[in-house]
């Protein structure tokens, strides 16, 4: 197992390199970050040259990538434009943890920019994931036990419909029903904008209240998909011989379902959940835009549209790293849970 993990980690490193090169090249044509640096007026040509030199944007792309990766504090940078490189650079490079400074929030390290917004996205994503797992297990198991009943058919149809909806449709629909129409009908309504009401302050209850609609939108699609999946695996497991043995032995129904059937049926969901992280991140981008939630998705969109390459690269590398790490964790967890699987 240790050898397997080591091999996977060693395989992941070139993968991350390839991804970083691909993105670095793609982010070349991000628009001109220097155009907005002059404030209201256009940057003068001399200032533009100076800024390009200071930010290292005038070097060839390969050198820029090397500087991004390993930093330039071992090389000389020409800061005063006389053609002679004299002062040493200040960046340490990604491999030492320095993602550079943001071009939009001048001078603020990228790590800090991301770190400010990351917890907000996690507040949305972690409860969504927990909700998805718990509810899909409940609904899937119930649906499988009462196969072809009215509830099962309703759940299956609803799952199909829910699975085909784009996330912004669900978000808009839930916004419309629970916020706008509830307000019209005089019922207590849910807030739709931001993380907390600025007049009340960032209290726990405020954040929890504002969290309801975004978490609901994020989880609905995956919930629909997984409950169908669980229903399928549960039906498969319930037709196995060992369940029949358990019933013949006279075990109480609850034990059969919860202990024997569920454990075997929920094993595939470990893989699916672990690999669904990218979907949650993608959903988070759209949801945060609609609900004006100050999270990483909105950060990505804002900085992408303004051409802030360091921050965008930072977010992308973080996401890729998280995906690769989650794939590894999922595989290891699956092997740990299922004694039939042995990696060499």
């Amino acid at each position, binding site marked *: 197992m240790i050898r397997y993990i080591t091999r996977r980690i060693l395989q992941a490193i070139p*993968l991350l390199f390839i991804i970083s090169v691909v993105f670095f090249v793609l982010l070349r044509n991000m628009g001109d970050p220097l155009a907005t640096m002059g404030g209201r007026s256009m940057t003068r040509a001399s200032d533009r040259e100076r800024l390009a030199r200071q930010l290292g944007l005038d070097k060839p792309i390969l050198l820029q990538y090397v500087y991004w990766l390993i930093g330039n504090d071992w090389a000389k940078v020409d800061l005063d434009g006389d053609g002679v490189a004299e002062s040493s650079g200040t960046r340490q490079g990604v491999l030492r943890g320095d993602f550079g400074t943001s071009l939009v929030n001048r001078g603020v390290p990228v790590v800090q920019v991301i770190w400010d917004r990351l917890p907000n996205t996690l507040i949305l994503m972690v409860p969504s994931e927990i909700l998805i797992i718990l509810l899909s297990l409940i609904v899937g198991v119930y649906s499988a036990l009462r196969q072809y009943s009215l509830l099962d058919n309703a759940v299956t149809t609803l799952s199909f419909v829910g699975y*085909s909806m*784009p996330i912004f449709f669900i978000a*808009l629909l839930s916004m*419309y029903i629970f916020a706008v129409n509830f307000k019209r009908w005089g019922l207590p309504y849910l807030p*739709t904008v931001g993380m907390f009401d600025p007049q009340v302050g960032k209290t726990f209850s405020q954040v929890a209240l504002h969290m309801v609609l975004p978490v609901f939108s994020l989880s609905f699609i995956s919930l629909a998909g997984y409950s169908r999946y669980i229903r399928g695996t549960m039906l498969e497991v319930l037709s196995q011989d060992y369940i029949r043995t358990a019933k013949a032995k006279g075990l109480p129904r609850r034990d059969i379902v919860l202990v024997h059937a569920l454990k075997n049926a929920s094993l595939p969901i470990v893989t699916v959940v672990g690999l669904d992280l*990218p979907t949650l991140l*993608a959903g988070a*981008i759209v949801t945060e835009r609609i609900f004006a939630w100050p999270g990483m998705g909105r950060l990505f969109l804002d900085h992408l549209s303004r051409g802030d390459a360091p921050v965008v690269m930072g977010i992308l590398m973080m996401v890729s790293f998280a995906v690769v790490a989650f794939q590894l964790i999922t595989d290891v967890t699956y092997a740990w849970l299922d004694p039939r699987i042995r990696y060499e």
Partner: protein
Amino acid sequence: MSQSLSLSPRAAPLPLDELEAPPLSLRTLTWRRFRRHKMALGGIVVLVLLFVYAFGGSLFYSEAYANFTETGVRLQAPSAVHPFGTDTIGRDIFARTIFGGQISLIIGLTAVVLETIVGILIGAAAGYYGGRLDSLLMRFTEAVFTIPQIFLLLVMAKYFSGRVPNITLYNRTYSGSVVVIIVIIGLTSWPYLARIVRAEFLSIKENEFILAARATGASSSQIIFGHILPNSVAPIVVSATLGVANAILSEAYISFLGLGVQPPTATWGNMLEGAYNYIATAPWLWVFPGTLIVLTVLSTNFVGDGLRDALDPRSRTI
């Protein structure tokens, strides 16, 4: 028995136990099994209706009307003159959903064609040749597969934004971003298909008829495209059908975020852009395009599901 092969059917009546129906082709077999799924048939009907709506509707409305802004009538509720209401700058939403439907459906279909071609080429090369080429291609596939598709789409859309000029085809002007969207959706969805194709190739390659083909001197491309590929059509068809739904959704996502097809060209996705600002006052802005997207994706998913059941090689019953 061996005699009946050379005799014409009229010459001697076959004994009863030798009568057999002609073997069913894959297409007939699949269609018969597909017919059993009512939901999938319903999906096909809805898809046909949507196509008629999008392409037939252009006979009644001209595109100029769909892009005709009249700010005096902006944000009007559905009425007799504007069946779906008007949007924020006074364009008729009904006409825009018709033309938007054309673009969305075209994007969905073309992106899938591109994705299928790329996926088949890469999967076939990796599966057939194996060895170094296989490892290299699989590393690359994994790299593209690891990144969440929407991040790739957004970054590539930004990369191409403003660089592709407008295209004029059949007297209609399309924004250059339509081609961009088609290309980037096609270029980010192929890993899934490539893996499936590679797995199929790896398993079919071991059959004896491939050995026989090679022994009779068939070239590699003849074997790949003439022998192995026709036998692996089933998962490709299913994946392509579900890929259409994915492509339409992806286009809707990036247009919604503002980086997709640029106005004035309408698509269902970019009609939803900014609609959440008007959610309390003008729900018709997002209800109609959104419902159309849901209907299209839903029926495509039904059809794909039905195809998957019908093409399942493990169940041989009709």
